[in-house]
């Protein structure tokens, strides 16, 4: 938005950029305070895992601190407080630095997770310690590249659906109409690209890679209990882990074989091919997470395609039913992203480091269950409070809207109002 403002010099864009900066400010502070604990929880709750893998995954985690957190936190202060002290272009650069910092940070996190999913570039010493053998091998793990693309498309989708929902809300309420249209325009154009890219090529590549490297996870996600040639995709149905079948299945024949191998008759390995000790520990939850993610991803493409068509025909702003759909879609990308991460992490079970270290080998032995429960409850309470605060403040900001406020004038330093 700020980029658009600089290019067009249209004050509308500056106003909306300022509005989103405020929403982002609230979002960011909650992200920071909930993110800090995560780095420490490796050590507090997963001490043994940290001890043996620290030399490897410590690497991307420190790089995240050194290369991204410093960048984004230092420039966030400038971005939020420094508008008067900087030129317009300078202010845009602070926003860009925050953006670059947070996207870079995403990459380092993904490298960490990707190494746990698909460990590369390491050796183990006699006493079991993991050591890096190739820095670039670790950093350019193919799993990380694919997962990052898929994850960042997911982040973009969340962003555009929030923006579209706020735009639709303003149009339906009949206020801030001009801004609402701008939100919808940007959101739908970016959204159609991101939603399609989420499924093809990123989701597709991710799926094939998973099928090659973690076939047992793939079988569990799809609820494929027995090996089949021309395996179907189960669109709906409830997996029964005991009797190893899907109840009430609605299936698309041969599609799974085609998606993975490009041939409708290819054989896909089912769970029966693998020892039960290697099965993901919670198959129904994994199955549902994956299906929620994939189902919502498909829905997003449909919604964005319809919106883009209406936008192209110039009818989107008047089509109330479409605006209603966009508004009601607001929570869905959050659910899809959560489900996607659950698919990745539950799918990795029973391993912490896939194929090398099992989950029960990694926890902190001296922290007993009572202590864990105590802190878990503490975090749940605190995060519930944060969630309430976030919803309250975000609602307030959106209801208040992108109104004209006294804007600090860059040249004189005195507050003036931009018309």
């Amino acid at each position: 938005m700020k980029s658009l403002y600089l290019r067009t010099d249209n004050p509308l864009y500056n106003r909306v950029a300022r509005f989103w900066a405020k929403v982002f400010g609230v979002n960011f502070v909650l992200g920071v305070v909930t993110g800090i604990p995560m780095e420490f929880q490796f050590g507090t709750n997963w001490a043994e895992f940290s001890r043996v893998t620290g030399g490897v995954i410590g690497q991307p985690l420190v790089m995240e601190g050194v290369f991204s957190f410093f960048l984004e936190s230092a420039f966030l202060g400038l971005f939020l407080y420094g508008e008067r002290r900087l030129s317009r272009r300078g202010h845009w650069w602070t926003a860009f630095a925050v953006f670059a910092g947070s996207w870079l940070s995403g990459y380092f996190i993904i490298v960490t997770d990707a190494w746990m999913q698909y460990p590369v570039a390491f050796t183990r010493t006699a006493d079991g310690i993991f050591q890096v053998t190739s820095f670039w091998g670790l950093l350019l793990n193919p799993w990380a590249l694919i997962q990052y693309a898929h994850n960042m498309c997911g982040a973009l989708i969340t962003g555009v659906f929030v923006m579209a929902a706020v735009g639709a809300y303003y149009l339906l309420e009949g206020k801030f109409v001009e801004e609402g249209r701008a939100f919808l325009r940007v959101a739908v154009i970016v959204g159609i690209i991101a939603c399609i890219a989420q499924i093809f090529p990123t989701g597709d590549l991710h799926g094939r890679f998973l099928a090659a490297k973690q076939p047992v996870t793939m079988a569990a996600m799809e609820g494929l209990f027995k090996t089949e040639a021309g395996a179907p995709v189960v669109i709906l149905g409830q997996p029964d882990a005991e009797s190893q079948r899907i109840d009430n299945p609605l299936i698309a024949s041969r599609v799974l074989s085609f998606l993975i191998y490009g041939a409708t008759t290819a054989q896909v390995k089912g769970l029966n091919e693998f020892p039960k000790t290697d099965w993901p520990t919670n198959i129904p939850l994994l199955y549902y997470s994956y299906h929620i993610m994939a189902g919502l991803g498909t829905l997003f493409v449909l919604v964005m395609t319809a919106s883009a068509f209406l936008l192209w025909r110039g009818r989107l702003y008047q089509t109330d039913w479409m605006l209603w759909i966009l508004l009601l879609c607001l929570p869905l990308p959050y659910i899809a992203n959560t489900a996607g991460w659950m698919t990745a992490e539950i799918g990795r079970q029973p391993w912490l480091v896939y194929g090398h270290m099992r989950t029960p080998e990694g926890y902190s032995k001296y922290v007993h269950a009572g202590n864990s429960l105590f802190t878990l409850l503490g975090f749940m309470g605190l995060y519930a409070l944060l969630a309430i605060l976030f919803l309250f403040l975000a609602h307030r900001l959106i209801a208040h809207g992108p109104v004209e406020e006294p804007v600090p004038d860059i040249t004189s330093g005195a507050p003036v109002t931009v018309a």
Partner: protein
Amino acid sequence: MLLTWFLLVAIMITAYVVLDGFDLGVGVLHLFMARTEDERRLLMRAIGPVWDGNEVWLLAGGGTLYFAFPLLYASGFSGFYLPLMIVLWLLILRGIGIELRMHLESPVWRGIFNGCFGISSLLLTVFYGAALGNVIRGVPLQRDGYFFLPLWTDWTVGPQPGILDWYTVIAGIVALVALALHGANYAALKTTGELNLRCRHAAAFLWPVLVLVTAISLAATLYIRPSLLDNYQSAPILYAIPVLVAASLFGIRRMGAQGNERGAFLASCSYLIWMLVGAAAAVYPNLLASTTAPSLNITVYNAHSGEHGLAVGLIWWSFGMAIAIGYFVFVYRMFRGKLSLGSDGYGH
């Protein structure tokens, strides 16, 4: 190589204490110093643009520890489980305290977040001091390199101590006083008029207290672990460190009395730096001492990670930190000088 990484971790922790120290100090003091909403806003704005960046030093320091000395990270973080979790909760409360207070004009809303911010800042300083006290005192390490400490036992420094005992409580008080004074010096640097005068009075009031608790803590340290002097005995040049601590204390007083705000602030930075350098010089090469048997100590030699990783790490670490220091110089230059009320585009 190992000494280098020990120094790098020590430098990051020191940078964190010096930088986040002043905004923690301002957090503690704002409860007492600000009489009007405008004054409070000024104090908040003095730290608003920088507190988050300062806190990153803690994250980066913790990450560096994880990467360079995984055994220490694993053992220390799981052993100090409960206090660390409390610190994390306090960091959360403190973050929302400062960042969410300006969203509503309501006095009740602001009151809640002021309290959140002030009290969590205060408890954090005490916990940080106590944490350092624990590292100096040592913990009951087991044969596998792990331990677990309850919050308190019988408040003595015996072989089975708690997180809090009489010694670590003293360390916590030293941290509280030192960072409050540090914060007062910073606030004086950023403010004018009556608020500035109040900050300087607070600094003058805290100074003799700091001298007293510093002396007590040094004496207590030597009493509970006389062996900490070993490094000093073998390299007497290290005795310059306590002299520099004393000189910094003297400098805080003298600059404060002369009205040299920048000098006083730099002197309190210097005090914190030399106190931590003194502690690091005393414990090396131990990272975490055992109260049960010296053979179980976690040292730089048994805690480090793979050589290749450390060697490659040194390259990108130096590069990344050089850039990061560049940002900090830039940001602090942008926000230098005294503050006044007036719209700055955001919040406070």
